[in-house]
């Protein structure tokens, strides 16, 4: 395990069903994960295929389309989005053969998958588990850490853009079993979490949650306690009031009552322009590329920077797990400006060798993603010119939760010669992507593409690494290793990552002695077990007993996208 690798918020939701089912259990650690109990891939005797069953011939792959939606138990009616199911009566064999052919057609490393007889597997999920590469990265991590599935019902529920109930706070769990340590990571602007009550915001960065509705967060041990804690942390509906005892950094405990509301996370949480001698340094806390509103939000933030005549920019992507690559391209254009980006590639999606110049999933010609200089219609009208800062360098604040499209920004900018200075921790290392695909009620995630930049580079599966980090692998960038600092508000000069970036901007080097916070959070050194707000329909994070299996899974799963 490389140092500083941090699981992020999706992981808890992804595994929560499994976690609650396995609390206290050991083992696990597989890289295939799902919010449903993982079936044991018990080989079964090869039956003689019936006449209606497909026939297995090693190395021969019928078109996946010939098996699609042919289900052992077809669904009827419509899904939660109102689309009619297209399932028809099929067999288990059809489902297994679809997985096999779909993997052969679309999996990025299809030539590293051992062709195994589908009839040796008793269910599609067990078979899917083995339809992946077993190669490793230079650091020894699994090359494919992102191979998983979930029920299509859950997938559809989670991808709805509707706001969900909550307070507008993101929490981190540093210890999920007694003695627990639950902290506030940040709050959404204009949310119940940040709207002052009696002159003070209910939740502030770094605050420890000590009690919820009378139950001791740190030591509450019964299942009834856990239920109360989870119900309070994650209100099921808007309008619920819950009482918390919180202890802000360096302060005594206080009691707050907070009422939940339907919250849509803000892509841009805050912006600042910091006077640094004669220079102005811009700061943008950008937390997600996922919602379509991120296009307008980041345009507005960059416009604020342009209006403020900033000469350096600090992009805080420490909690940004990615989202829309097109918005990542737009952001990169706005940082670098037209001169280095016009006519250049932001990112090319590379598919398996058999795909040629086609995207094997969509069937379309695989054209590079350019640096978009205009609005694309997400939340800005088509053709709206984007502002640009025309900067030769940018500072990126990072943690292990800096993932996917956030890393694409780093890689895309480096590809056109922009200096990227990394301040914080090693990024998650996910140059890969997939098109989640349903078959017969299960949505499968298999890696189908790798993004490479204008100079063809995309091998950062071990993450982008600040130059001074002791980790021997990954792609090194200029910059400084700094632990996330919960003791100061984000976007303030006293916050360790930002302060280090400001020092580097002036001195072109890391501080000789790392900055340390004036107030101690009391948080034990190291990464939180999980960071989360909420994914609809998922179970929660607080448990009654140590979570060995969860930890293993979290550490083996680096698909650390943001949660919205």
């Amino acid at each position, binding site marked *: 395990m490389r140092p500083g690798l941090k699981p992020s918020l999706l992981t808890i939701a992804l595994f929560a069903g499994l976690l609650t089912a396995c609390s206290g259990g050991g083992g696990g650690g597989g890289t295939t994960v799902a919010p449903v109990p993982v079936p044991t891939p018990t080989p079964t005797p090869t039956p003689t295929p019936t006449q209606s069953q497909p026939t297995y011939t090693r190395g021969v792959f019928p078109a996946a389309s010939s098996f699609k939606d042919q289900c052992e138990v077809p669904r009827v009616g419509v899904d939660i*989005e109102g689309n009619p199911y297209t399932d028809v009566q099929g067999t288990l064999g059809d489902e297994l053969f679809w997985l096999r052919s779909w993997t052969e057609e679309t999996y990025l490393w299809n030539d590293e998958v051992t062709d195994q007889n589908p009839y040796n597997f008793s269910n599609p999920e067990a078979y899917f588990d083995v339809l992946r590469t077993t190669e490793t990265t230079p650091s020894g991590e699994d090359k494919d850490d992102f191979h998983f599935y979930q029920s299509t019902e859950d997938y559809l529920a989670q991808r709805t853009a509707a706001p969900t109930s909550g307070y507008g706070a993101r929490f981190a769990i540093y210890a999920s079993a007694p003695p627990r340590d639950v902290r506030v990571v940040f709050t959404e602007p204009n949310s119940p979490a940040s709207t002052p009550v009696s002159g003070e915001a209910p939740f502030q960065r770094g605050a420890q949650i000590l009690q919820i509705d009378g139950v001791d967060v740190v030591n509450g041990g019964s299942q009834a306690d856990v239920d109360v804690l989870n119900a309070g942390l994650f209100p099921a509906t808007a309008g619920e009031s819950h009482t918390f005892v919180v202890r802000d950094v360096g302060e005594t405990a206080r009691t707050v009552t907070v009422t939940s509301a339907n919250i849509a996370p803000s892509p841009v949480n805050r912006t600042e322009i910091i006077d640094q001698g004669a220079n102005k340094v811009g700061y943008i806390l950008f937390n997600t*590329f996922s919602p379509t509103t991120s296009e307008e939000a980041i345009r507005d933030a960059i416009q604020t920077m342009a209006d403020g005549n900033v000469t350096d920019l600090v992009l805080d992507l420490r909690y940004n797990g990615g*989202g829309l690559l*097109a918005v990542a391209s737009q952001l990169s254009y706005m940082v670098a400006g037209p001169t280095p980006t016009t006519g250049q590639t932001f990112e090319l999606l590379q598919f398996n060798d058999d795909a040629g110049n086609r995207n094997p999933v969509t069937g*379309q010609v695989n054209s590079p993603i350019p640096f978009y200089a*205009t609005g694309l219609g997400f939340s800005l*009208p088509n053709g709206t010119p984007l502002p640009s800062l025309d900067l030769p360098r940018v500072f990126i604040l990072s943690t292990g939760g800096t993932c996917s499209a956030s890393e694409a920004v780093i890689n895309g900018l480096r590809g056109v010669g922009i200096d990227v200075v990394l301040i914080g921790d090693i990024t998650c290392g996910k140059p890969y*992507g997939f098109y989640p695909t349903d078959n017969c009620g299960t949505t499968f995630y298999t890696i189908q593409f790798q993004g490479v930049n204008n100079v063809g580079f995309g091998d950062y599966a071990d993450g982008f690494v600040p130059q001074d980090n002791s980790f021997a692998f990954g792609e090194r960038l200029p910059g400084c290793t700094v632990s996330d600092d919960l003791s100061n508000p984000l976007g303030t000069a006293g916050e360790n990552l930002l302060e280090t970036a400001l020092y580097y901007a002036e001195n072109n080097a890391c501080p000789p002695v790392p900055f340390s916070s004036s107030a101690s959070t009391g948080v034990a050194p190291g990464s939180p077990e999980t960071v989360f707000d909420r994914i609809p329909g998922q179970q929660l994070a607080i448990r009654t007993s140590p979570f060995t299996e969860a930890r293993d899974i979290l550490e083996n799963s680096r698909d650390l996208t943001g949660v919205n």
Partner: protein
Amino acid sequence: MLKTGFAFMTALASLAACAHPVSGAPVPAILASEAELTPLMAELREMTGRANVELGADDPLATPVVTILPPPAGPFEGNNPALPTSYGLELRDGACVLVDQDGTMVRTLQGVTCAPYASKAG
């Protein structure tokens, strides 16, 4: 997918600036009224085969463009290559139609009433 939105809009604006409603000649168009949004959305649902269709930032009541958002991404789609899909809105022989970037007609919008787009340039 429309990847050159600005050029597309420029082309549409140019068309509008030069538009003379000659019989049979395509004319950039907008929806005749807000009430046309309902049949437009029904047409888009049928065209895409999706029960849920959301329009993007372009307002077909004000500009001759219809933009359809991609389906929302799930929380694990950190590298999501989705793009909106944009079409030009035109009047052709009195019918309201969607055209792609090359001007090829994609669909006649049944039951949707359009009006000629009056460009500021025109």
